[in-house]
């Protein structure tokens, strides 16, 4: 036994004392390791670079609605595979897998609740369910949310976070663009406020229907908001796209969103705007008088 023999077992063998799975999150913007609890408490916004990560639909509801006021609607509406669509997998199997993975029935969660005291109808996309794609279920639930808002005379808020129309439902999914636009038109007719919030990413048939029709359109910082995706455009025109193209700030500059709001200010901003657009909202849907 020589003097340089190790008395202790070498490092890196035996019990690993590394980072437990899921305890830290790596920021997609700056690469900073953020303690998961802190990351969630900050609604998935990086404390260092301010990157807004995708927020699951349920957490979005938690962000916007007063605690304990949310009542979900249409939770049991589910997709039907009318076309028996099959690509590399069957659409039916994709739905089942997405339901298991996301814990949601489809790509949107709808219901009512109070937002700083204002009674609202809220629809929040779940990006974890097939990229938040819009098929018949999403179209139907948005339409019903709008119709409830008209009947109950309250504001409608839709938080979009979606790759666009769901190809697996063919032309049925295309028609949801018209379906949702019809109901937004009824909101306009009823002179009730509709606020469209665009989170990263909002694309295709979602952008080109209800998402761009808000009385007020609010974007989260640096969200990709587009009709045709950057890859499609690059392939079509065979040029590199300019820096910041199709990001929130680009849309603001070109006049297509009203304001960019940090996630931490979102609730406050929406509440203030509803206040200004509340001429046709009855007392029971307003915040109680102090």
């Amino acid at each position: 036994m020589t003097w340089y023999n190790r008395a202790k077992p070498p490092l890196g063998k035996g019990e690993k004392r590394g980072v437990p799975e899921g305890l830290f999150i790596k920021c997609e913007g700056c690469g900073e390791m953020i303690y998961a609890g802190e990351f969630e408490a900050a609604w998935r916004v990086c404390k260092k670079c301010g990157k807004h990560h995708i927020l699951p639909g349920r957490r979005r509801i938690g962000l916007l609605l007063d605690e304990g006021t949310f009542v979900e609607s249409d939770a049991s509406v589910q997709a039907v595979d009318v076309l028996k669509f099959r690509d590399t997998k069957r659409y039916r199997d994709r739905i089942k897998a997405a339901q298991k993975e996301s814990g949601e029935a489809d790509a949107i969660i709808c219901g009512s609740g109070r937002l700083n005291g204002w009674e609202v109808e809220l629809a929040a996309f779940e990006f974890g369910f097939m990229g938040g794609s819009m098929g018949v279920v999403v179209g139907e639930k948005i339409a019903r949310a709008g119709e409830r808002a008209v009947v109950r005379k309250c504001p409608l808020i839709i938080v979009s976070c979606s790759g666009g129309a769901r190809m697996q439902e063919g032309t049925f999914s295309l028609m949801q663009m018209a379906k949702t636009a019809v109901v937004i038109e009824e909101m306009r007719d009823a002179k009730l406020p509709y606020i469209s919030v665009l989170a990263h990413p909002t694309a295709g048939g979602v952008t080109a229907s209800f998402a761009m029709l808000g009385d007020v359109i609010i974007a989260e910082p640096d969200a990709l908001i587009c009709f045709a995706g950057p890859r499609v455009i690059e392939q079509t025109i065979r040029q590199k796209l300019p820096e910041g193209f199709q990001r929130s700030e680009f849309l603001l500059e070109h006049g297509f969103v009203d304001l960019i709001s940090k996630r931490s200010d979102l609730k406050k901003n929406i509440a203030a705007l509803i206040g200004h657009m509340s001429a046709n909202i009855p007392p029971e849907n307003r915040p109680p008088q102090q």
Partner: protein
Amino acid sequence: MTIAFLDFEKRILELENKLDELRSLSKLQDADFSSEIRKMRKKLKQVKMETFSRLSRWQKTQLARHPARPYAIDYIKELAPDFVELQGDRLFGVGPSIVAGFGTMESRSVMFIGIQKGRDIKEKMYRNFGMPHPEGYRKALRLMKLAEKFSKPVVTLLDTPGAYPGIGAEERGQAEAVARNLMEMAALRVPIVCVITGEGGSGGALALGVGNRVLMFEHSVYSVISPEGCAAILWKDQSKVEEAAEALALTSRDLLENKIIDEIVREPVGGAHRNPMLAAHVLKRVLRRTLGELSALSPEEIVGQRRKKFRDMGVFFEQLQEK
């Protein structure tokens, strides 16, 4: 007329050439080939019927894109010879992929709006291959409002690969232009009849497709995405276009079955490009009947019918809970 033939059109071309030969031969030699000609014509008809009743969805897509297929201007000229084109969105530009204006169809004043692909290279460039920019959609909307102001019906003729995906189009709000048209068309107080004449390319077609009646030519297609795009995204393999076309169920018959369209406009055997005049004539007859039916409705009924039609699109499953 020279016709660029698709694979499955070749056999028909051969037979047609033989028939022409026989005819010229009989004239030249003053001989009687009439029984041969009759036989040949019968065979030609049979082959045409067989070929065109058994097209796959991908073949139908190719037919819908056939370079000799009549385009919007071809139809409009036949439907309303006095057509006056009106241009510009009053905001930015002309929007040349879309042709629009008033015309008289059998003493009825109609606002025609059509997407134009362009026949030769020069026109194709000018029309941007039938892929409208936001200006085109905004011009169309301006003119639909004009029609509404004077209580005239709107007829749209749709044939587009899709709304143009480019830098300028995004900068000027392609998504907003499409979205606004959907909403404003839903509320328009005059009848709207939409006809897919060739390619119904996704949102780019739907942006002019919110009508009281939606018709499709027999060999046209209407889809949320092109078979090429779908194959690239879902199969990650550009060569799977045939599978993608089958899966997307994009033919006129599929869409009638799924109650997304109201009616199929029959085409001459072999497709509209084999006899554009006849195709336009059939369309005129269908439009006459359809506009006649819709003219009996009040503006409120027109709006109500259109709203309900699109509100109810799609099938879903719901577990009804006791309240």
